């Protein structure tokens, strides 16, 4: 028999308690075990950085946020547009999809120096890296989504003498939205990863740069604070995507 579902109170309380237990163990157990603070600082020390160096953190959050957001929008938009082209032209899809596939097998870390060579040291290469990292999953999902209408749905539109663009707007696109949103959820995290990776390789601003500097200077509390902030950024983007998805997809 399947266990009974949790009450709503328990469903909220249990994960909070779980996180709290980990934080308490981290705060008191790790120092007891002799783990030095320059390797793993305590949660209170990390929280202290947010109070002490708030301006520094926000200054570095801003470029990463802009790069991740711009990369997210550009990468996904490009993927959606290319998917639309591909499902309407099997010839173009057959000719170019393998190349896209090959491109996707290049590790982003290997690709990043090339992108920085091309676009220099400003925000642009980071936006490009974030866009590239979002691009492929959305392209694949969007192609599948646009092709996911059933045969009888297509027959229905043909009986109604619908034009190609009517079929696109009234059938293919709404059919593709659930799959598009599932890749946007993934992209909300990977866009931040892309921006940070770009900042690692060539930047003195942004959370990625802060992570590198803090590591080299053994400022591990600052390093951990930057990590917490970048993960919060991903979570915020993810939540925005989910909120939009709930408004758009009602069924």
């Amino acid at each position: 028999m399947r266990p009974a579902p949790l009450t709503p109170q328990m469903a909220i309380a249990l994960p909070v308690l779980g996180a709290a237990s980990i934080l308490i163990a981290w705060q008191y157990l790790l120092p007891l075990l002799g783990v030095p603070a320059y390797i793993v600082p305590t949660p209170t020390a990390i929280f202290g950085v947010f109070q002490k160096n708030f301006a520094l953190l926000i200054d570095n959050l801003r470029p990463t946020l802009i790069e991740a957001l711009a990369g997210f929008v550009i990468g996904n938009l490009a993927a959606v547009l290319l998917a639309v082209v591909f499902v309407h032209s099997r010839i173009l899809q057959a000719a170019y999809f393998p190349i896209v596939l090959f491109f996707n097998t290049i590790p982003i870390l290997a690709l990043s120096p090339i992108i920085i060579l091309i676009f220099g040291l400003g925000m642009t290469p980071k936006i490009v890296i974030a866009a590239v990292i979002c691009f492929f999953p959305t392209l694949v999902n969007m192609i599948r989504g646009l092709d996911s209408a059933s045969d009888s749905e297509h027959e229905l539109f043909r009986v109604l003498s619908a034009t190609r663009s009517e079929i696109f707007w009234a059938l293919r696109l709404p059919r593709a939205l659930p799959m598009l949103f599932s890749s946007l959820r993934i992209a909300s995290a990977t866009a931040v990863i892309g921006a940070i990776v770009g900042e690692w390789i060539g930047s003195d601003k942004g959370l990625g740069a802060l992570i590198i500097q803090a590591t080299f200077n053994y400022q591990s509390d600052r390093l951990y604070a930057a990590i917490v902030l970048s993960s919060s950024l991903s979570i915020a983007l993810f939540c925005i995507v989910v909120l939009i998805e709930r408004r758009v997809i009602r069924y």
Partner: protein
Amino acid sequence: MPNAIEAQKLDVGYGGRQKAVKVLSGLDLTVAAGSFLSILGPSGCGKSTLLRVVADLLDPLDGTISVLGASPQTVRSRRDVGFVFQDSTLLPWRTVRDNVRLPLGVGQRSLSREIEDRSSELLELMGLGGLRERLPHQLSGGQRQRVAIARALLGEPKLLLMDEPFGALDEITRDRLNDELLTLWRRTGTTILFVTHSIAEAAYLGERVIVLAANPGRVVKDLDMRPLKQEGNRCKREDAAIVAAMAELRAALERAS
């Protein structure tokens, strides 16, 4: 008035003219305008294929077919054909009302204002008045098929093609929808081609029942039901004449399988 359908020596198949697998072969069929034709046959006999040729969803390999006195293509572009699929094919993101109004939003020939107003009338007629803001996943199987029928009727088609529309429904719901369909047919005078697996349904609904055999599909039985029924294609399911006709159809179907 021209016949609703005139088909001569119709060959239909899949996979190109040379190596085609023939689904229908040498099919001759004439259907009078305004009549109700039931089509029975074993799986793979080409019942659905026949409907698809009439609806211009599929081109015949050979032979001629005219629908309402014109080519299937002309008739489709005039929006004179309604199609009801086995799965209701409702768009899950549209409400009941918006699904019924789908034909208003698409197609080269936009429908008139008058027909637009018909959507609420049709919803009432199909017993869907209280459900117009529901989404398809909130409906029962019978309600979904009612919506699909209302959508097919919105453009006031002269010809209604139904491909096992009630195949997935329970028997009580199916019987009720059969009666509703007959009422609609009497009111609208639309020609109906109704494909089904059920002998009882075919006999109860049709003014005429044809049985197709498989490999390749052809007409092996053509039964006029009108002498067995009362005025307006009315009968009771348990009438002796209907039961006898069902036995006759069953025998033909067994030979055809």
